[in-house]
């Protein structure tokens, strides 16, 4: 469902992605791992054109995403994204965070949007926070609201950009549990993460990126326990 072909991204003189080619199937959970600065976040951000690739193509459901305009806005409605820093709208209540885009972008009725929001909050275990503002929530709660906000658009794919990296350790699991639950529903997910436990347990496939190159990919059991490249070996020795 997502096809990435020879993706390059350059920031000035710095080439962050050096030709990435891969395909993400419907219903697949893909974990993207690698050292910091390996380009894994940039790779993820290219999938919904938050970063415009320097060259190469990204196609979602057979449609190639072009730089900007209607095509991308349309595609983004089907691609949910969860950020490291949550990026909830601080001036809106939790409910408004969840209903703003469905009402204003998808033109869903208010009643329908409210219904969706309630269900999603129940699913992430935050029903009682419906009228709270983001500043009244803990990091883990914010991230769960952010996941619910993305799901309120009923996307086909969910992208996660280091969703637990900004959290206090005791809050990591509540977010990972929500993500696990989501994976079990058959959602297509691409997750940039440092949580090797999550990658091993939940992912169908792991991509190892280093210096902008897709060094290795495979089933988590194979890649994490028996890496083929030296780079992957060295990296995994440090983190496992």
């Amino acid at each position, binding site marked *: 469902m997502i096809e990435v072909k020879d993706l390059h991204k350059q920031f000035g003189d710095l080439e962050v992605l050096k030709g990435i080619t891969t395909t993400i199937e419907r219903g697949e959970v893909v974990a993207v791992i690698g050292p910091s600065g390996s380009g894994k976040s940039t790779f993820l951000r290219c999938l919904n054109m*938050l970063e415009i690739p320097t060259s190469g193509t990204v196609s979602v459901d057979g449609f190639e995403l072009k730089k900007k305009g209607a095509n991308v806005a349309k595609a983004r409605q089907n691609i949910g994204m969860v*950020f490291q820093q949550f990026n909830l709208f601080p001036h809106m209540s939790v409910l408004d965070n969840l209903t*703003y885009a469905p009402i204003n972008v998808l033109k869903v009725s208010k009643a329908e949007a409210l219904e969706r929001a309630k269900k999603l909050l129940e699913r992430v275990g935050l029903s009682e926070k419906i009228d709270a503002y983001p500043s*009244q929530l803990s990091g883990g709660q914010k991230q769960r609201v952010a996941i619910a*906000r993305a799901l309120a658009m009923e996307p086909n794919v969910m992208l996660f950009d280091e969703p637990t990296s900004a959290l206090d350790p005791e809050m990591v699991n509540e977010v990972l549990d929500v993500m696990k639950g989501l994976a079990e529903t058959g959602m297509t997910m691409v997750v940039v993460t440092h949580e090797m436990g999550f990658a091993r347990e939940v992912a169908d496939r792991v991509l190892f990126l280093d210096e902008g190159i897709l060094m290795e990919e495979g089933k988590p059991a194979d890649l994490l326990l028996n890496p083929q490249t030296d780079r992957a070996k060295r990296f995994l020795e440090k983190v496992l």
Partner: protein
Amino acid sequence: MDFSRIYDSIPYILEGIPVMFQVVIVSALIGISLGIVVATLKIVPNRLINFIGHAYTAVFRGTPLILQLAIIHFGLPQLTGYITTPYQSAVIAFSLNSGAYISEIIRAGIQAVDKGQWEASDALGVPYVKQLRSIILPQAFKNILPALVNEMITLTKESALVSTVGVLDIMRRAQIVGGQKAIYFEPLLFAGVIYFTIVMILTYLGQRQKKRLRKSDGR
């Protein structure tokens, strides 16, 4: 120093207060509208339009306000053949000038909003105008309002410049009284007290506003 000599002129000088406020309030309203337009020119994704916005700001911030006022009042009629009254010239000059400063305040306020807010709304497919109106501007407003109050204070003080084109404001009236009675220190000092009092009141109101905004941050 003998203030008893200007007692009978005090009402005359005080009549300058509404005159001053007329200049300041009208200029501020036009200036804010203009500032919004110029700020928009500066942030839309188009280099040529950006340049126009920046050029406008550079010219009005890069030259003395008293010069702008003089060109509009004394210079322009030579080209247009249309003579503006002192009040009109004052409002035109102050509106154009404050528009430049206010556009910078608005632009900075918008750009200070966390980049993540643009990205999050981009990722949800929110179109640009709605993004600006519902997500970015409400947050930018908190950055903009305190700076805007400062600009109003500056405008109030600088408004004394309109005396140079003959608007009968506080400053001008104080000078006239000085001329008539051949004592300058007392009327000018009195004018100073009026300006100082007004500025202190505005500063106080601004501080209170700031506190209220800070409180609402903790929602």
